[in-house]
């Protein structure tokens, strides 16, 4: 479905009666047209004055030329700033121990958590993927969950945890991590999922689940956070062994299967994984995201 460009943009301080373009109720927009017309008129007058003005001396001309040069560089800098994303996600595909995986490495920006439908128009989000699971019985978030210092769900069904404090991600595996209280006190973030790797070793929390699915995990290695997902369905144990072979220091599971993840690469190209289905996004669907 393509948007009809005949309908102009609207600002938040405007209203517009639909199907009634002659109503003139877009007063603020009309005011802007008057302002634009006035600016065009003023520019015309200034141009006319400059055209009839006598040429100045050499110093005046140099000054004018310098102004032109300065303007050229400013414009070039503006173009550069648009083309180079301030933060982005690097995407790499590898085969580890015979398992094809895709690795997303956020570059720049800061991680956080959010709940609900992501704002797909927010260009500052350069990677986002689902974080905690949802309980089937009451549709609440499964396990401890802290959002900007507020604990909005409690539970230790899963012992894997991820905390984001002062923009730094830590991943662990235990029942009562100090990071939970620290996240609350510092206005940070915290969620629980299956622990996969702790201290560089395979954690068997998820090993009872024998079925195969596409797997996704948040990992830490030498202080760098990144996301690994399998391109094919794998069991939890096999996925954990892949992460172990990647020599990650810690890893926690993220919602896998066909769950949707998207981001932007260095060139601003949109990248996506999984299937977007708005019907499966619930009020309590949570995400870990990186934005600048």
């Amino acid at each position, binding site marked *: 479905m393509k*948007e009809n460009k005949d309908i102009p943009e609207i600002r938040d301080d405007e209203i517009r*009666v639909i199907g009634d373009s002659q109503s003139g109720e877009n007063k603020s927009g009309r005011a802007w047209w008057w302002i634009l017309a006035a600016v065009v008129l003023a520019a015309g007058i200034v141009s006319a004055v400059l055209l009839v003005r006598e040429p100045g001396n050499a110093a005046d001309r140099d000054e004018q030329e310098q102004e032109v040069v300065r303007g050229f560089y400013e414009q070039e800098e503006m173009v550069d700033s648009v083309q180079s994303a301030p933060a982005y996600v690097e995407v790499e595909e590898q085969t580890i121990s015979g398992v094809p995986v895709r690795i997303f490495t956020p570059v720049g920006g800061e991680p956080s958590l959010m709940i609900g439908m992501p704002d797909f128009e927010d260009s500052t989000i350069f990677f986002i993927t689902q974080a905690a699971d949802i309980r089937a019985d009451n549709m609440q978030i499964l396990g401890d969950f802290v959002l900007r210092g507020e604990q909005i769900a409690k539970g230790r069904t899963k012992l894997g945890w991820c905390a984001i404090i002062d923009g730094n991600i830590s991943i662990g595996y235990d029942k009562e991590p100090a990071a939970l209280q620290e996240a609350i006190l510092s206005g940070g973030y915290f969620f629980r999922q299956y622990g996969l790797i702790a201290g560089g070793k395979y954690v068997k929390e998820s090993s009872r689940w024998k079925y195969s699915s596409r797997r996704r995990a948040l990992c830490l290695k030498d202080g760098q956070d990144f996301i690994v997902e399998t391109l094919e369905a794998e069991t939890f144990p096999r996925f954990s062994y892949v992460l172990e072979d990647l020599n990650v220091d810690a890893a926690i599971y993220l919602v896998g299967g066909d769950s949707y993840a998207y981001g932007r690469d260095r060139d601003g190209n949109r990248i996506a994984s999984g299937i977007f289905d708005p019907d499966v996004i619930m009020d309590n669907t949570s995400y870990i995201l990186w934005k600048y």
Partner: protein
Amino acid sequence: MGRHIVISTSVDLVRVATEGVVYISSDGNYSTLIQADGGSRILTVQLGQLETLIARQLETDGNVFIRIGKSLIINRNYIHYINIPKQQLVLSDARTFSHTVSASKDALRQLKELIEKE
């Protein structure tokens, strides 16, 4: 029988009578339709696309709907209460439903003037 809006994508179709729409809000690339029967539905189209679609399908009858800022399309027949300082707009049929939405003060001021002239 009243007129309908038909929203069709490659995989589904939604057909709703104009009086069945209370308001539509923007969720980025998607929109949420709030219905008079209490239901709601996520639409995989942007609000601007819906505005275009309503204008094209309903033509001048589309003036029952008002676009408010970037985030809302409302059914003017359900405007029940406007409070500019609180940036509050209540949409209700005064019987079965009442929805409170937020909009900018300038937009609500213009909406109030519009309704006063009706």
